[in-house]
């Protein structure tokens, strides 16, 4: 990253870190003429969403069953950040601009196209992406993939389109909702009741997609929810990098994001799933992501959580096949008014499986960070190895940072290591660097930059301009 702006110091000598500049994302378009379903959650609304999409009967049945589970299921009383400000009776679960899905940006309605232009998506597509899906509120408004990628047999479309295609409807039915069951938790059930939009990706065996695919989710409507479903199947020996970005303008009423991501990484395959989440500070981000990984396969998560008012986000990896591996690299930045409960879960089920988790978090201006993880080593996971590292930086005394890592080991040949540290920038470190000729400000800048760098370098900056913008704002304007 260039043009590093060093942080300033406050009266107690702390590195003063600027707020994330959200002006790039905080713009609104009129909802005039949009189709918006009534607030709340009823069987009629669920039927209306299903009918709108012309789905097969089994999907409507699944939705209604999920609605029932949602109403019956309670939230665990001892769970994370408070979400009492979220009232589903005042959330619309379906909002659509009524635009037909386009394959050319010129066919996208002007205001929506302008939104994605400002977010840099078309430019990123031209420069470095193999395909792009853009969702605006509840529906995908743009979807396209490079011809040469399509020719290799890669399918990148919406779940709705896949369901309408006789070739893929059976595949969706076989995989949809199997990895994340609807009774997983209350908001998983909600998701299945009202899901809309998202992506279906199928990479045939042995195919390597050289450039990433990217889906971008924009929630423009106020008091609405976004419930996209992402289903990715990477067949044996195939390779894919998928990027997910999301943002929303800020409103004074609560918005909800309860998406679901199901990833199937077959034997010998590799999937890298990168996410930059920059929801506005009125957003409840209660997202569920899960991957199952076959023998000799590899799952890589890169996760940046910068926005939202409250987050529950714990991507889960099930290392089912022997010799499968998982890497999770994450950074979370919590500022004023944010309570972000993030982390990951890894289940090591196969022999010789390996997992590596490396996370960083920064708390400032009263922001609350909670790192939460679970590493579970099963009875049959002979010689499994897992290491978890979690580092948290506190930038003032009104913020908070907690780490809650759980380990459950049931195999006597496995090795699990964990390390965590919380603190502020050490005066000794600053003194050491100053004794080597750095000014105090340079030293502090170097330490903060170095703290975030191991994670930020993993972010796919070269692939998405939107992410470039965000990380620049975070790492340059903010962290140094």
């Amino acid at each position: 990253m260039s043009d590093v702006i060093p942080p300033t110091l406050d009266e107690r000598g702390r590195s003063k870190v600027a707020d994330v500049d959200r002006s790039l994302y905080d713009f609104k378009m009129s909802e005039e003429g949009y189709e918006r379903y009534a607030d709340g959650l009823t069987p009629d609304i669920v039927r209306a969403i299903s009918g709108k999409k012309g789905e097969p009967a089994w999907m409507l049945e699944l939705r209604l069953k999920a609605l029932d589970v949602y109403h019956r299921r309670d939230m665990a009383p001892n769970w994370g950040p408070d979400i009492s400000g979220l009232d589903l009776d005042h959330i619309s679960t379906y909002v659509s601009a009524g635009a037909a899905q386009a394959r050319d940006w010129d066919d996208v309605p002007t205001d929506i196209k302008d939104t994605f232009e400002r977010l840099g998506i078309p430019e990123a597509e031209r420069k470095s992406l193999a395909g792009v899906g853009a969702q605006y509120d509840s529906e995908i408004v743009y979807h396209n993939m490079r011809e040469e990628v399509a020719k290799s047999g890669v399918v990148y479309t919406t779940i709705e389109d896949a369901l309408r295609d006789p070739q893929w409807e059976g595949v969706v039915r076989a995989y949809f909702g199997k990895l994340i069951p609807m009774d997983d938790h209350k908001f998983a059930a909600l998701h299945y009741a009202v899901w809309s939009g998202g992506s279906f990706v199928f990479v045939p065996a042995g195919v390597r997609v050289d450039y990433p695919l990217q889906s971008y989710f924009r929630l423009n409507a106020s008091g609405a929810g976004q419930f996209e479903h992402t289903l990715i199947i990477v067949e044996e020996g195939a390779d894919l990098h998928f990027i997910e970005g999301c943002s929303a303008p800020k409103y004074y009423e609560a918005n909800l994001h309860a998406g679901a991501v199901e990833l199937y990484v077959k034997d010998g395959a590799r999937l890298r799933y990168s996410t930059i989440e920059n929801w506005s500070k009125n957003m409840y981000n209660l997202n569920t992501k899960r991957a199952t990984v076959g023998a000799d396969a590899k799952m890589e998560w890169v996760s940046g959580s910068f926005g939202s008012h409250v987050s529950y986000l714990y991507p889960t990896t099930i290392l089912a096949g022997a010799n499968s591996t998982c890497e999770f690299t994450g950074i979370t930045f919590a500022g004023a008014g944010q309570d972000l409960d993030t982390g990951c879960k890894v289940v090591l089920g196969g022999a010789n499986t390996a997992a590596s988790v490396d996370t960083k978090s920064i708390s400032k201006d009263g922001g609350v960070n909670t790192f939460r993880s679970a590493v579970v080593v099963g009875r049959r996971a002979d010689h499994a190895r897992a290491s978890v590292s979690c580092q948290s930086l506190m930038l003032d005394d009104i913020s908070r940072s907690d780490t809650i890592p759980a380990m459950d080991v049931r195999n006597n040949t496995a090795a699990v290591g964990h390390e965590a540290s919380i603190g502020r920038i050490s005066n000794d470190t600053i003194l050491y660097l100053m004794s080597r000729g750095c000014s105090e400000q340079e030293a502090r800048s170097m330490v903060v930059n170095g703290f975030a760098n191991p994670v930020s370098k993993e972010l796919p900056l070269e692939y998405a301009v939107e992410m470039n913008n965000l990380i620049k704002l975070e790492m340059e304007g903010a962290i140094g």
Partner: protein
Amino acid sequence: MDAGSCTTLEHVNVPPAQTWNYLKINEATLRMPTPPAKGEVTSRLPRLFCAVEDGIGEAATRWVEDSAGDARYIEVPRHTRREEPILVEVDADEGQVADTGVLVREGAEATVALVSHATGDGRTHSANLVRIICERGARLTVNEVVALGNTHTHLEGLGIQVGEDATVTLRQYALGGHQVALGMAVDLVGDRSRLELETRYFANGEELLDVNHVVRQRGRDTRADLHAHGLLDDAAQKTLRETIDLVHGASRSKGNESETVLVVGEGVTNKTLPVILCDEDDVQGNHGASIGSVGADQLAYLAARGLSEEAAFALFARAVFDDAMIHAAVSEARAAALARATEVLGADVARDLSEALELGQDSPAERDDATC
């Protein structure tokens, strides 16, 4: 206590911050005898002990208070050094339940020994609850030994409130029991207060060991060092929750926790929940955990020196009992550890341990003689 009618104690050993319930790591549940009806009870510990958190939770604390015959209160006067350790002994074979309060006054120095032991094979239920207030400048050493057989269910709580400039050195040994719930909470409320905790545990067979350590660092410039080492064999199940809570205002405080677990048995379940809660920026909190078995390279090294894998593991197990006996503050603690070692490691090893200890005890005197 005899298990006449039973009651289920839920929410035992609940840590301040919890995680996914499906992991079944957030709390323990114990079936204990229903406390006898005692009518109006007035002889309780002084009210100031009510404010001392003990790690086992409210329901379990109430159960001990209701089940114990009487509460025992000991006070160590200010600026005195109590030579003989305060012994709090629970004979689990008899199903005893003890409720004890210790007040270590300003500048005083004392040692408290908690010994819960059993050698019989009766299905008994016992408990030991000790709450300690350690005033400004006091020095407290605690030696805690739980050495029971695989038919005994035991609940043990320890709460310590630590005042300004006071220090607590605690060695905790969990050496066996059918189901043992061991809670501990230390409140470093005074500035510059200190805690050093060394925990050693051993569990085998189908034993269940559930440990909850909570350390609140409230005062400024406090220190907490928690280190746990353990060995699990057969189908033993162990849960260790360790929480360091760096409370707002605890500036310049440091908290460290670490755990090393040697997993030997094929049926072992090891659960660890090391938590750091941080509401202050001018602090340091660190955690490290290592869970696994002896590496192939290390075993090869030992084999080259004539030690089989079994012999190597036996040595590791012996080390836990060795440590308990070496650091025993009272003969009752040493006897309890030795009795359990005899049961687990065999009479020959136990005799060897005992002889080595006697030899070691002679050493300082011999050294003194040599100096003279």
